[in-house]
């Protein structure tokens, strides 16, 4: 897999990488909270979600899972499910805590205008969250 595109997410980065059939991103974060936050923002950028005018609301999401990799899949699927079934977009995502396989985040939901691309599922393919000197890194493959 070759790195081909860098999606700027501040002091960390999300890179889109090649996958024959589907989409894959490599995500970095200085800690688990930024890793999870960058993964969500990178995914939203891939599907090119846009908002329309209307009432927005703040919402707290609390999730738990078997391990951090399962938590990552659960977190991204949570956002995708809400976007599809409740027709919302996310304008602010603040992952406040990832600890002991639990996540707490505050998000701002706005009415969804359009999704240009569709992610059908978040996969476990080669999914492993690695700890590095700079923080954490992982690769996420999406079924599209």
């Amino acid at each position: 897999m070759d790195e081909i595109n860098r999606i700027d997410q501040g002091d960390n980065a999300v890179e889109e990488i090649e996958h024959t059939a589907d989409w894959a991103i490599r995500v970095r974060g200085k800690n688990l909270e930024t890793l999870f936050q960058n993964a969500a923002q990178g995914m939203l950028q891939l599907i090119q979600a846009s908002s329309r005018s209307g009432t927005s609301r703040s919402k707290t999401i609390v999730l738990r899972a078997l391990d951090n990799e399962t938590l990552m899949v659960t977190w991204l699927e949570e956002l995708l499910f809400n976007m599809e079934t409740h027709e919302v977009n996310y304008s602010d995502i603040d992952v406040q805590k990832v600890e002991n396989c639990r996540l707490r985040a505050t998000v701002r939901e706005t009415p969804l205008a359009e999704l240009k691309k569709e992610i059908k599922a978040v996969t476990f393919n080669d999914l492993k969250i690695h700890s590095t000197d700079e923080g954490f890194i992982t690769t996420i493959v999406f079924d599209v």
Partner: protein
Amino acid sequence: MIRKQDFQRINPVIWEIPRTFREDMRVPVRIFASEKILEATLGDRSIEQAINAATLPGLVSHVVVMPDVHQGYGFPIGGVAATKLPDGVISPGGIGYDINCGVRVLASGISADEAEPWLDDLAGALYAHCPSGVGVKGSVRLTAKALDNVLRQGSEWTERNGFATPEDVLRTEERGRLADADPGCVSDRAKQRGRPQLGTLGAGNHFIEVDIVEEIFHAEAAQAMGLRADYLAVQIHCGSRGFGHQICSDYVRELQKAVQRYNIRLPDRELVCAPLDSPEGKRYFAAMACAANYAFANRQVLTHHARMAFEEALAGKVGDWDLSLVYDIAHNMGKIETHSIEGEAVTVCVHRKGATRAFGPGFEGLPDEYRELGQPVMVPGSMGTGSWVLLGTKASMDLAFGSSCHGAGRTMSRRQAKRTVRGDQLLAKLENQGIHIRAGSMPGLAEEAPQAYKDVDSVVDVVSEAGIAKKVARLKPLIVIKG
């Protein structure tokens, strides 16, 4: 890194990675490929993924890889693996996220010449009648109870509700209904996603095509199927939409715990699985059957809409605008089947992911008109090229658990395709070739460019030479509808 010299060449189109190649392999991996296709396949991780799949508990014989193989997640797309009952495993990753993604072909009595002046009208009518694109909702509104009935009954539900003829149901794999479906094993989230989407095409590589039957290779089979040279045929390619994806996601997550419970060691977490006779394995199979039934019903409702579009665009302009189903076949499915393994009849769960069932002559589940010929196999090619209708063979039963290829197979990533091809230029090129295109997104069109796929003819040549399918007819596109 897998190299060409790691394969043993069994014949010009069958190659094998022996079980001894990697310590954790339980069975060999056998790939159907020409030398050129094999070399191209080594460019991604599909063979490594097939070797990973060969580590699953309970496998019999060998893991089969079709010539349209490409890298997937966990299993490769274009893989077939059979696990022995009762305690061999079932793996959602070996079936795929889009459970019962499949293809149906419909035959017509409309000559291409007769239809030619009305093709653009027909393209517009199909695009209007058959909802497509990201997040699209269908015109069928299902209550919670009605959805459960769809999940239990599949195509039977569509017949009861005026979307199918009795012949449609007879000409669908398993008559459009897997009996083990249990809506109680499906999450509320999957049901929420499934309720608004019945009768929708979606996006990605799914499509509706109107084709001309370009050439007939097996006159008797083509006649039984209603396919005539220079007449129109229709292909519908889609699956179980968000409903099936949610079921796969739910169970891939749930079975992460099961592999620990049953002490199963896996090289890739996407291969998670559970013994078929375990509570987890049984629940996944019952949920998967629901998604399979949903997909059969989905393609049938789309067929109903396509018939309405044909009537709207062609009634009074051509002699006969009816469409008759040739066959509907899944290419992402797990099925309980009996196969002869080393001379013994063995009941197995055949995982086909990006592979089509291709049963030979004599199979009792086939409709009368196909029983002595073999099962029709649909092989859609890339957009703007050709597609094939084939027949399953006895050799397929012996060599590939009654399976064959499912399409052309990608060679280029979606991102690379978009870098290489511009959607608007591709649209103009295809329209110059006389193909009428209706597409929801230009980047989406570019991702599905013919250059991103293998040559479907060379894929079909391999399965034909290997004897696992016979050529019946080649189709060429006139209209392409994409989400």
